[in-house]
């Protein structure tokens, strides 16, 4: 069963229609826990992109040799291997950023989004499609994290990527860790509102 979408459509699908954070509501832990700045979002986004793309490719290559009964453990172990790789690379080359993200890099192994993509997509499609689907999902996650980070950093610190934009701090509350819940909730509600308005306008 091959997909009839082009590579570009697969990428766009991951970023918009099936955005892991806002549409599928998966991988919420980092979206709440460490989305305080845009930079954190980019860093974890890169890590997830790496793991997603490489796991998708691996599973897509070996899909015909996996017995259906043990497919979930196989996916988990594949992801765990790639997470170990990125974990050690980050710890060695970017120790400061790694310390900021703390345990969340190791926890990529438990992100539902990656397992789900392997089960729904990579185990049925060929290598090229799986690669682009992985890129789309990884980028979708990164964009979602950056969007939350953007709102929180702007409202909490008045900065974007460390540069002072507003010159004052509107709502310091937003950089508190627990404000992630409120921020994600409000943003989801906002997107839902835009979607309903858009549909209403489209219908005339």
């Amino acid at each position, binding site marked *: 069963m091959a997909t009839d979408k082009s590579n570009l459509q697969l990428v766009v699908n991951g970023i918009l229609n099936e955005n892991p954070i806002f549409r599928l509501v998966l991988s*919420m832990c980092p979206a709440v826990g460490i989305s305080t700045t845009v930079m954190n979002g980019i860093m974890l986004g890169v890590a997830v992109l790496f793991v997603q793309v490489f796991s998708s490719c691996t599973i897509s290559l070996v899909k015909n040799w996996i017995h259906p009964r043990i497919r979930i453990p196989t996916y988990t172990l594949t992801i765990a291997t790639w997470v170990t790789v990125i974990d050690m690379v980050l710890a060695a080359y970017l120790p400061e950023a790694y310390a900021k993200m703390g345990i969340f890099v190791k*926890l990529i192994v438990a992100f539902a989004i990656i397992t789900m993509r392997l089960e729904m997509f990579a185990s049925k499609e060929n290598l090229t499609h799986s690669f682009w689907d992985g890129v789309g999902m990884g980028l979708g996650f990164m964009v979602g994290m950056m969007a939350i980070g953007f709102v929180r950093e702007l409202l909490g610190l008045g900065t974007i990527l460390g540069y002072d934009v507003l010159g004052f701090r509107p709502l310091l509350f937003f950089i508190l860790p627990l404000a992630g819940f409120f921020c994600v*909730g409000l943003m989801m509600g906002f997107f839902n509102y835009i979607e309903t308005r858009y549909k209403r306008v489209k219908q005339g």
Partner: protein
Amino acid sequence: MHRLTMLMRALAVLTLALLLPVLAQADGLIAGKSFGNDREIVVTFKAPVDQAVFADPAHYLVYEESDPDIRLELADVRLDSTGKIAFLGFKEPLNTTRPHVVSMIDLPAAVTGRTVETFRVAKPYLGYLLSILVSALLINNFVFTKYLGLCVFFGTSKRRDTAKGMGVTFTIVMVVSALMSWFFYQFVMKPHGLDFLQIVVFIGLVSLTVQAVDTILRKVNPVLFNAFGVYLVLVIANCVIIAVPLIMANNEYNFLETFMLALGAGGGFLLALYMMASVRERMELARVPKSFKGVPIAFIVAGQFALAFLGFSGLSLF
């Protein structure tokens, strides 16, 4: 009935074994020792002691038992009016959850018979274990203050029945997999220098436990099994269940400490799920703005719970 008595007796022996280090007193000069406030150790002597020697910080060496190289700096030492109780004040706050070692050096041999007196100051072990439990349950609740396991949290907190079943199953899986992870970490991975395989081994053990629970539940309680649907599989994809072994390995916990951590994490998850489900059942009747129906409002409610759980920070029972 006979089995019950046996169980009680075993429990009593266990409690006694845990309390024994507390009851045992140091011999010689010292009658008792304990932590005062967070930057103070209180030492009680058997007889009044010499002001010139025992009120001088130069005669004391204090360090955490795990880091003998890092000497903790004393600010001052005070003796009370009877000369039997010494208050050791420190410049930095002490980590009172860890055992500390106090050495009194260069003592006049005429007084004590030896020039060095060393003793250990620690909180009662049972209290320490309970503090790990309470910490994982309330103060560092995995859902509301560590933001872990949110996918499953929002997915299964729609009805109280599901929440209860999920929470209990989750706790069981968590405890079993954490203890297995502890065993593998201590006896296989550490001796062979395989620390870097933590993620792979721990997630493998979790999958194994989940598979076992899945098979058993399918046979024993099909109703509960149907209620969980896809979420039992998603237990593997839950951050909490892999975070517990990672924290265990990071802190070098022993068997009992690991057990308490896993129990607290599972109990905390159950607590969070149940509270959330109670609110969400009520919320179905409330008039929520259309765009916020479902997940968005659940996030905002969770945020309010998280605010409430901030109140537990700084809680110290033992």
